[in-house]
């Protein structure tokens, strides 16, 4: 061999791969969340809702973005989490933390079982199976009126103060902070997860499942693991929603819910984790804004945004930031040419 070995251009110890971020980049969303609390007091309900959607979109990013599981059934987990938390508070205990863990457990179990049944299929067949699952869940929710309240929704959720101290107030202070904390915990978990060897193997599976089998990866088990984790996370988002609104409507299980969360994620950008933040926030802001101009206008704008994102902005809105950074700082991510 004659070619001299050039020095690697990135330090070996660094985790390379998707979503390297500067400290400023990391701090920004959390500073915004904190600032929002102090500055825009009147919109805390909106802020809480957005954060719940962020968490939901984050859960989808793990399954869809990283592992490439194209699903339209994530509302099944979100809805199940919401109902589990709500029903737990009515029939078992009003402790919100306990109820939250119960909901996470239930959805994780459901994710495990349903994933075990369907994860051997791929493509449109898998898509269809997830769609069917969420449809069946919706019907159960509608008909099991004694448990879920059916079409009237689940009412009568009462919660004790968190740790016996922080009461869920009308102004939504507690709900906001509680949601922010839960989101932060999940975010840290997700961040570590996607940058772990496990996360890298998922990335590999998304790119080429056959290759991963050829290097000895138990593909089905890996997918099942991330599907279960993602389900638990979506269930956690559902539980937050039930606790923050003290109400669960049947629509949490609707196909539209699955659709909306997917739109948010794609809009923000998949496989970036922070894409979920941007996507959910932008979706909400644009919705509020356009709906005030003319309610019909909203659907139109969402449609156009989706089409434009797919055609011109593969990486979602986060891609815009990347492109800007590249313009400013030259090529950063691609390896040096020859």
């Amino acid at each position, binding site marked *: 061999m004659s070619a001299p070995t050039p020095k690697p251009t990135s330090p070996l110890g660094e985790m390379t791969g998707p979503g390297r971020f500067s400290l400023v980049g990391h701090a920004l969303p959390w500073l915004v969340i904190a600032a929002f609390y102090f500055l825009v*007091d*009147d*919109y*805390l*309900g*909106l802020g*809480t*809702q957005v954060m719940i959607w962020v968490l939901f979109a984050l859960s989808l990013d793990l399954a869809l973005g990283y592992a490439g599981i194209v699903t339209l059934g994530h509302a099944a987990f979100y809805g199940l989490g919401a109902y589990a938390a709500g029903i737990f508070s009515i029939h078992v205990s009003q402790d919100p933390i306990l109820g939250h863990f119960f909901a996470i457990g239930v959805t994780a179990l459901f994710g495990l079982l349903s994933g075990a049944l369907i994860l051997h299929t791929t493509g449109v067949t898998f898509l269809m199976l997830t769609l069917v699952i969420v449809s069946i869940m919706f019907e159960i929710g*509608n*008909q099991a*009126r004694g448990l879920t309240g*059916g*079409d*009237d*929704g689940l*009412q009568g959720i009462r919660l004790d103060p968190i740790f016996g101290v922080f009461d869920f107030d*009308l*102004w*939504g202070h507690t709900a906001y902070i509680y949601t922010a904390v839960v989101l932060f915990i999940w975010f840290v978990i997700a961040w570590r997860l996607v940058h772990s060897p496990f996360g890298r193997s998922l990335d590999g599976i998304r790119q080429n499942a056959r290759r991963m089998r050829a290097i000895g990866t138990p593909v089905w088990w890996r997918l099942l693991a991330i599907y279960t984790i993602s389900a638990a996370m979506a269930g956690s988002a559902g539980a937050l*929603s039930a606790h*923050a*609104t*003290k*109400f669960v*409507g*049947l*629509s*949490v299980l*609707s196909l*539209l*819910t699955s659709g*909306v969360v997917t739109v948010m994620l794609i809009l923000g950008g998949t496989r970036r984790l922070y894409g979920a933040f941007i996507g959910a926030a932008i979706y909400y802001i644009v*919705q509020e804004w356009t*709906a*005030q*101009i*003319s*309610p*019909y*206008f*909203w*659907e139109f704008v969402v449609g156009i945004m989706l089409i434009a994102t797919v055609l011109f902005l593969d990486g979602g809105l986060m891609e815009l930031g990347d492109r800007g950074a590249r313009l400013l700082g030259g090529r950063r991510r691609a390896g040096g040419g020859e």
Partner: protein
Amino acid sequence: MKRFIRAAGVVAALALPMASASADVVKVGLLADFTGAFAVWGSQFQQAIKAYQEVHGTKIKGPDGKENEIQFVYRDLTSAGPEKAKQLAEELVLREKVKFLAGFDLSPQAMSVADIATQAKIPTIIMNAATASITRGSPYFVRVSMTIPQHGAAAGRWAAKNGVKTAYTIVSDYAPGYDAENFFTKEFEKGGGKVIGSERSPQQETNYAAYMEKVLRAKPDALFMFQPAGSPSLAFVKAYIERGLKAAGIKLIGTGEMQQIFLPQFNDDAIGVVTSFHYTETNKNPENIALRAQLKKMFGQDADADIASVAAWDGTDLIYQAVAALGPSADGLKYVDFFKGKKLNSPRGPIMIDPDERDVIQNIYIRQVEKRDGKLVNIDIGQEDMVKDPWKLENPAKK
């Protein structure tokens, strides 16, 4: 696009007086679906409210003689979940500082804001959501629309009294459907009739062939339906005719399915369908004539009043009267007390707010579809005066 522009104009028009507000502004937050599957409700509410404000002006003198401006703030629930209703209600209360909430086409939406209404002491006028128990959700809830049992029970009593011996029921598979089935059956059987079969069809159903076939085979005297107004109800009536149930002499009895707005979609086969309802569009009340004329004047010949318009009209009327009597900044409970026992001359006829339950007490009209001047119309063939919600009579409030 025209409508977008017009809507933008309205926003601008609403924004202008805000800038020059010298009069006290009383904001009313109106929550309804303007997009999605239930979009029609929002636009009907909105048109009626605008019509009312056009007729009565946006300013109303309070008891102190000062002018108050009534301003509606519209928010779209996008046919999404009730959590959206809750979030928007919070915003309206906290940010827009609305004095009243109003609207709510679907029951879950209304129920999800019960806590907010109670905690923030905001009188909340429910303009459609018809699940009977709603008004028990908050002492600040006042309903001007209807309850499902009012219709179902009256239909059952009418059928029993008018020669129907056996009936079959097909209701939509959701809470209001169960209520309708339950109260129709109860009253019908109390009057000596017998329900010989009952079905529940999926909420969004538009293919009723199998259900109609079952009814045809059971040969009842009448078929009682409860279907969401819109594509399911249209498809239901069409299937009834197509399948020959009408030819077989099975009478069709319903509630809201044959409202005037839907009649142009039927042909003469719909003649003879009987419905039990709280608003007959052709009634000659001066309020009704005024409302309908105003809508056509403002929104074109296609604009038509329905129960949403009537309820929105009455709800707005209540708010105007309350502000006139109590001023712009009375305590929430004071307003509610003002509403209790209030009688209104509604376009639908006389109504009263139940002093105990804050729910609407109203006449229920039994109408039949007939042809007049080449057009299908509902003609009253019977009437029950001032019907209280039967569900509440059956389930008295716990003290």
